[in-house]
């Protein structure tokens, strides 16, 4: 298939893997930020092609995985209300809250709909003026412009029955958080290409300067990922720390300006709690006060208890790249996609789900 096959070409993959082997002299640890990249790496077995001294660790870039349990509980509470049609992307439906997931609410009679775009939720609101339509706005900067567009359209159309439960997160503060941790061992990053398609590369410059780590904007196909790894290793070996673009077919340095404008018109930077990482300042997006009427948390009274999360799951360490899924004692036994102990086992982009699906027999890799 055009635009797919050429980036999965076996000969090209071998050439790039060889180039990485030639480049690499010292051991390095590189984190791919995005869960989509993690899945491609594990699905295609890309890490098997890398030299032994080069370690890829998996980052926190799975929006489903990092959505805090309190917010899932709020989604569940909303979906239970008889007047609400609760709309969500598919892979949020199975993420466990403190007691249940959205699929269970649906089975118990809640009106939960899987949509593929916030505009579908908007269309539902127009069709059902007697109901309250709530859209679960989850995701990184990638999905924020489309969600902003939905809010702008709702205002233009004068819709009074549309709102959003917002759980947007931003990549740069998460990278900063990881690098600020005393336990950090990541020496270079592959940044998520689709996030940069929207946001451009400028946000990452201060991070490379302050922490002295290379950040390479990277795509999602096998050749894209190996290209990103190669550029990252080359910088590390030369002692450089720059933002580089290994995904130029999709990413311009300035990003997508109209998308950014729309996003900043509707959203502002807020602090946010990440499942597994804790509270990270300035790491989220929330609706501006001018759009408060579309904020489901303000429209509905949502009493949700603070949740103490279970101790056995190590998804926090997995999301920080400090443990691999197979190092968890519950992995594949007490924790499976059918009975997930943590969100990293639920989401199709979660690192534990990727390992479970593709890699169950692989032994633990020492850190």
């Amino acid at each position, binding site marked *: 298939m055009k635009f797919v096959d050429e980036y999965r070409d076996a000969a090209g993959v071998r050439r790039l893997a060889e180039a990485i082997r030639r480049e690499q002299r010292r051991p390095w640890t590189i984190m791919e930020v995005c869960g989509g990249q993690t899945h491609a790496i594990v699905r295609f*077995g*890309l890490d098997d092609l890398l030299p032994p001294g080069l370690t890829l660790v998996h980052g926190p870039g799975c929006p489903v995985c990092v959505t805090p349990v309190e917010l899932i509980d709020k989604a569940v509470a909303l979906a239970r209300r008889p007047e609400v049609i609760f709309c969500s992307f598919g892979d949020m439906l199975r993420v466990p809250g403190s007691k249940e*997931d959205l699929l269970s609410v649906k089975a118990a009679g809640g009106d939960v709909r899987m949509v593929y775009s916030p505009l*579908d939720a908007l269309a539902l609101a127009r069709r059902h003026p007697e109901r309250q339509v709530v859209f679960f706005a989850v995701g990184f900067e990638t999905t924020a412009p489309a969600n902003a567009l939905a809010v702008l359209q709702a205002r233009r159309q004068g819709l009074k029955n549309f709102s959003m439960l917002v759980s947007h997160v931003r990549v740069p503060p998460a990278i900063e958080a990881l690098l*600020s941790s*005393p336990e950090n061992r990541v020496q270079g990053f592959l940044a998520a290409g689709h996030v940069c398609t929207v946001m451009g590369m400028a946000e990452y410059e201060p991070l490379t300067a302050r922490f002295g780590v290379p950040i390479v904007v990277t795509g999602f196909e096998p050749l894209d990922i190996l290209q990103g790894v190669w550029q990252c290793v080359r910088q590390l070996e030369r002692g450089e720390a720059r933002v580089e673009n290994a995904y130029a077919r999709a990413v311009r340095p300035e990003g997508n300006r109209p998308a950014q404008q729309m996003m900043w018109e509707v959203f502002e930077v807020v602090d946010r709690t990440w499942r597994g990482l804790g509270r990270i300042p300035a790491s989220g997006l929330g609706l501006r006060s001018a759009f408060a009427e579309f904020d489901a948390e303000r429209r509905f009274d949502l009493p949700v208890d603070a949740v103490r999360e*279970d101790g056995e799951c190590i998804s926090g360490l997995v999301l920080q790249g400090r443990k691999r899924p197979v190092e968890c004692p519950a992995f594949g036994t007490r924790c499976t996609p059918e009975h*997930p102990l*943590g969100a990293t086992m639920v*989401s199709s982009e979660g690192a534990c789900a990727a390992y479970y699906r593709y890699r169950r027999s692989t032994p633990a890799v020492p850190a």
Partner: protein
Amino acid sequence: MDAEGRLELRSSMSDVVQGGVVCPVPIHRYEQVLLAHGGGGRLMHRLLEEVFFPAFDNPALAARHDGAFLQVGAERLAFSTDAYVVRPLFFPGGDIGTLAVNGTVNDLAMCGARPMALAAAFVLEEGLPLATLERVVQSMRAAAAAVGVPLVTGDTKVVDRGRADGLYVTTTGLGRVRSDLELGPARVQPGDRILINGDVGRHGMAIMAVREGLAFESTLTSDCAPLVEPVFRLLDAGIPVHCLRDLTRGGLASALVEIAETTGLDLVVDEAAVPVSEEVQGACEILGLDPLHVANEGRFIAFVAESDAEQALALLRQAAPDLPATLIGQVRGPGEGRVTLRSRIGAARVLDMFSGEQLPRIC
């Protein structure tokens, strides 16, 4: 970010480290039936294992085949039933009527049986346009005529408006098994080659393309078709087929994993050999789905001895010259009952069933 912000961050990160405070409370067992229990993946298999198999335990059921084998005097019969609840009722390439006939006919074909007779039960929702019902019934008539099987008995019930999705159909079929034939997972041997009769994923993606909330433009049509002809090409040519399995919900992956788990044999499948059309591949890329997990209604896999594989492949291609029948893998020795997929770039990974429903991802 200012210094205060970083401080706050550090303390929250070290909380995580010391306490390991990260995990949601597990949902160990669902109290209700979820849609995912019908998805053809792990959850559905668990439902079968925990609820149905223990309740009805008997040798015919325990064979875990697409239908049951019954000995009636000197005659061996195959017996199978299936319920159809597709939405929308009409989709590109078929409708609930063609599905209901072909689905049961195919379950019989997977037993190596020619269909002799069908029964059909209809659950109709109050308010269903009669024209819709007539259209479905005409589809069933045409599909049954195409394989020469009479529909000999049936039943109709009507339920209140809102209690059914327009129309549900259940079909049951009886077929005559070739007398010389032993088919089933138990006959699969190490060294067997695995054949498929065409490309995968058409039915699931054709349905998804027209489903509410997910509509996208495509020219995809369902692969819904009877499999009697290709199966009997193999059997009539005297190929000692070891096992047949049609690919329905859960796709090729579920069929392979079921066989591997039932037999305890390891299977190796070459991902690049599995035929996938550009349209299906493209739609799957957009939605983040794997074509190997997507439903089919006119595809099957056959397990045959290595020495018969080339002839079997030639016969399948003769039966349907338009379809890319191909060899996709091989049975290895006894092992852990696992399916390994060799990826396009040469790496190996485990192929698993899907857990519940296939859910399109966020980004």
